[in-house]
C-alpha cells in the first residue's frame, strides 16, 4: 500500500479520520429542560461531551451554551441540525479551535508552606501568570486562565510540591467571525405573527358554554 492508499483507506485503526475538537455555540430560550433536550442529542449517539458551559448571552433572556466535543465535521453538521431543530433553540453554530477565541479557567490548591519555603514555586507561578485567590495558613489557591495545554502544564509543574486539588472550568468561547447575535435575534423577532390569530369566541358565549 502506498501512502495515498493508506490515507484513503477506511480502516480507522490507522487514524481517526477527520476527528478534531469542535466548539458548538447554541443560543436558546431560557427554558427548564432545554439542557436535557440538548445533552440527549449527544448521549443518544454515544458522543462524550468534553465540557459544557451555559451562561446568559449579550441578549437579555437568551441563554448561550458552549459545548466542546471531538468528532468529524460530518457528524458535527448533523448534530447541529438536530440541535437547531429543538423548538426552544434559536441558533446553533460549530467551530474549530482556529475559528474561536477561547479560555478556560483553572484553580490550584497548594500547601502554603511549599510556596513560603521554595522560591522555585513562586517563580513558576509568575511564569504561568497565576493569580492568588486565597491564602490560608495551610493552603493557598491560585488561578490561571488560558488554553488547556497551559493549565495542564502548571498541574504537572506543581505536582512535585504537593498539589492538593485542581479544578478546571468549562470552555467559554467567542466566534471570531460572528457579527454578534443581536442582529439574528432581531431577525427572529421581525417575523411578526400573521393574520391567523383567532380570538376565542368563548367569552361571548359564556352562558352557553358553562353548564356547571
Amino acid at each position: 500500500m502506498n501512502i495515498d492508499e493508506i490515507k484513503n483507506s477506511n480502516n480507522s485503526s490507522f487514524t481517526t479520520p477527520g476527528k478534531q475538537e469542535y466548539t458548538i455555540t447554541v443560543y436558546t430560550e431560557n427554558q427548564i429542560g432545554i439542557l436535557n433536550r440538548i445533552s440527549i442529542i449527544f448521549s443518544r449517539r454515544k458522543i462524550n461531551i468534553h465540557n459544557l458551559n451555559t451562561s446568559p448571552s449579550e441578549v437579555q433572556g437568551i441563554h448561550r451554551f458552549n459545548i466542546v466535543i471531538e468528532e468529524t465535521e460530518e457528524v458535527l453538521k448533523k448534530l447541529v441540525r438536530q440541535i437547531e431543530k429543538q423548538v426552544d433553540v434559536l441558533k446553533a453554530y460549530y467551530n474549530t479551535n482556529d475559528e474561536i477565541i477561547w479560555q478556560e479557567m483553572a484553580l490550584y490548591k497548594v500547601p502554603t508552606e511549599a510556596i513560603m519555603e521554595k522560591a522555585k514555586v513562586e517563580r513558576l507561578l509568575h511564569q504561568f501568570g497565576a493569580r492568588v485567590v486565597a491564602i490560608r495558613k495551610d493552603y493557598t489557591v491560585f488561578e490561571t486562565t488560558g488554553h488547556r495545554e497551559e493549565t495542564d502544564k502548571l498541574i504537572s509543574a506543581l505536582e512535585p510540591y504537593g498539589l492538593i486539588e485542581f479544578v478546571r472550568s468549562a470552555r467559554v468561547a467567542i466566534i471570531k467571525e460572528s457579527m454578534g447575535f443581536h442582529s439574528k435575534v432581531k431577525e427572529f423577532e421581525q417575523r411578526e405573527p400573521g393574520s391567523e390569530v383567532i380570538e376565542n369566541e368563548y367569552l361571548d358565549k359564556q352562558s352557553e358554554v358553562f353548564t356547571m
Partner: protein
Amino acid sequence: MNTLELEEEKKAKATSKKTINVSGSVALLEILMAEKVDTIFGYPGGAIMPIYDALYDYNEKINHILVRHEQGSIHAAQGYARTSGRVGVVFATSGPGATNLVTGLADAMIDSTPLVCITGQVFAHLLGTDAFQETDVVNITTPVTKWNYQITDATEIPSVLAKAFYIAKSGRPGPVLIDITKNAQIQKFDFEGYTTCNHIRSYRPKPIVREEYVVEAARLINEAKKPFVIFGQGVILGSAEKEFQNFIEKGGLPAAWTILGLSALATDHPLNVGMLGMHGNYGPNVLTNDCDVLIAVGMRFDDRVTGRLDKYAKQAKIIHLDIDPSEIDKNVKTTVPVWGDCKETLPLLTKLIDKKSHEKWLQKFEELKERETEACFKKDLTPTSDALSMGEVINLLNELTDGNAVIVSDVGQHQMVACRYAKFKKSRSNVTSGGLGTMGFGLPAAIGAKFGAPERTVIAVIGDGGFQMTLQELGTIMQNNVDVKIVILNNEFLGMVRQWQELFNERRYSFTDIQSPDFVALAASYHINGKRVSKRDQLKSSLKEMLDSDGAHLLEVIVGKEHNVFPMVPQGCSVSEIRLS
C-alpha cells in the same frame, strides 16, 4: 393627566377586559373547544381527576372515548390524526398512565404524527418526593416528543396549550406532551379568553425556500434520461397530493412510495410503480440503482428503504425535498437539497420542468413487474395451495371495497402484504406503524381512524401476535359501538421473525410459535360478531358478510403457517440485490 390618573385609567382598562374566573381544568376544556377538538382518547386517574370532573359538564360538546389502556388511547389518537389530518388529543393520569404513553409517543415522533397529550401530575409541592403515582414524565418523554412542558400554575395553561397545538401541527408534525400538576388543574384564575399561537421566536416550522436550488433541481430533472421519484408521508402531511401528481405527470416521472407515503398517489395511477424497501416491489428497488436522477419527496431514507447505504443509488444525482433541514444529508448525500414545504416547492419545480414522457424508462419498470408477477403476485394473490394466503385476503378486500376503505395494519408479515397489495384511490387511507414498527398498534389505531373518518369503511388487518398485544381495546369498541372491521390473519406464528429464522437461522424457530385464544369467542364475549374461515370457497362471502355487517365485526382467517413475504432485500444487502424467493 398626572401619573395617578394614568394608573387609574390602566386599572379601569384591565377590569373592563372580559375575564372570567375559572379553574385550570375548565380553561383547558375551553381551549380544546377553541381548537375545535371533537374527540379525546383517554383514561382517568387520581392526578387528572379535576380535568375529568370538568369534562363531566362538557360531555355533549366533546366526545371522550374511554380506552382500556393508555397505550390504546395514544394509538387511537394517532389513527385519528392520520385519517383526519387533525391533531389527536390524549388524556392520561400521572405515573403509570403517563409511562404507558411512551410507546405511542415514540411511534408518533418517528412517524411525524401530530398529537397533544395531556397528563395529570401530582401537586407541585410533591414534585420530586416520590409521591404516589409520581413519575418524571417530562424527562422520560423528552427524547420522544417534539416539545413538552410541565404546567404548575393555571395561568400558564392558555399560552402553553396554544403553543402545544401550534407546535404539534406545524412544520414537520409531531407529538407534544403537556404535564399539568393537580394544583394547577384546581387553581382558579382570571381567564381572558384564548388566542391561538402562530409564531414562536425560536421555532421555524418551515425553512425558507431557496429559489436557486429549485432551479438547479429542475435543470437536473430536465437533463435526466432515467429520473425516478420516491415519495413519503411528507406529501400527505403537506396536503400536497395534487401538487405531487401534477409534478410527476408533467415530467412523466415514475414514482414509488415508502410505506408511509402509501395512498398519497392512487394505486392505479400509470406513473405509480410501487413500493420501496425491504419488502417493496422488485422494479423500484432494482431501478433505484439504475436511475440517473433520484428525486426524494418528503421521505427520510430509512434503512428499511435504502438497504445497504454504501451501495444505494451511487450512480444517481440526488434531489431531496424536505421540510426538515436535519433530514438533508442525514443518511444519503444530496446533490441538490430543496428545503421547504413540498406544497410550496413542488409547484415551483413543476413550473420549471419540461413536459416529457420517459416511455423507454417506464417500460423497464413494466418488465421487472412482469418478473415479480410470475415469481410473487400469482402465488400470493391467486394461490393454488390448500392453505389461504394473506395476499388473497387483501386482494378480495380490494375487490369488495373498490379501493375506498381505510386499511389499518399492525406490524409484521401481514403489514407488508397489506401495504404491497392494498389498492387505494384516496389519500390518508393507509394507517400503519412504519418507523417504530409497534406491534399492537393496529386495533387501537383502527378505532381512532374510524373517529377520524367516520364516513369511511375502516378495516384493521392484524396478525395473531400483534392482536394479542392490545386486544383489550375490544372493550372500547364494544362500549362506543365503533364500526371497525377486524381481519385477523392467523398463521399461528410470529411470522416475520419466523421468516428470518427460516432464511437466516437455519429454521431454528426460537419462540416464534404462538398460541392464540379462540378469537371469535373472545369477540363474542365483547358482543362483537365474528367468524372464522379457513376455506377458500368461504373466504369472499365471509369478507362480504363482514363488510355488510352493522357495526364491528371480527373475521379470523387461518392462513398458511410458513408462508414467506417476497421480494425481500436481506439486511446488509443492496436494494438491487433484492430476492424474489
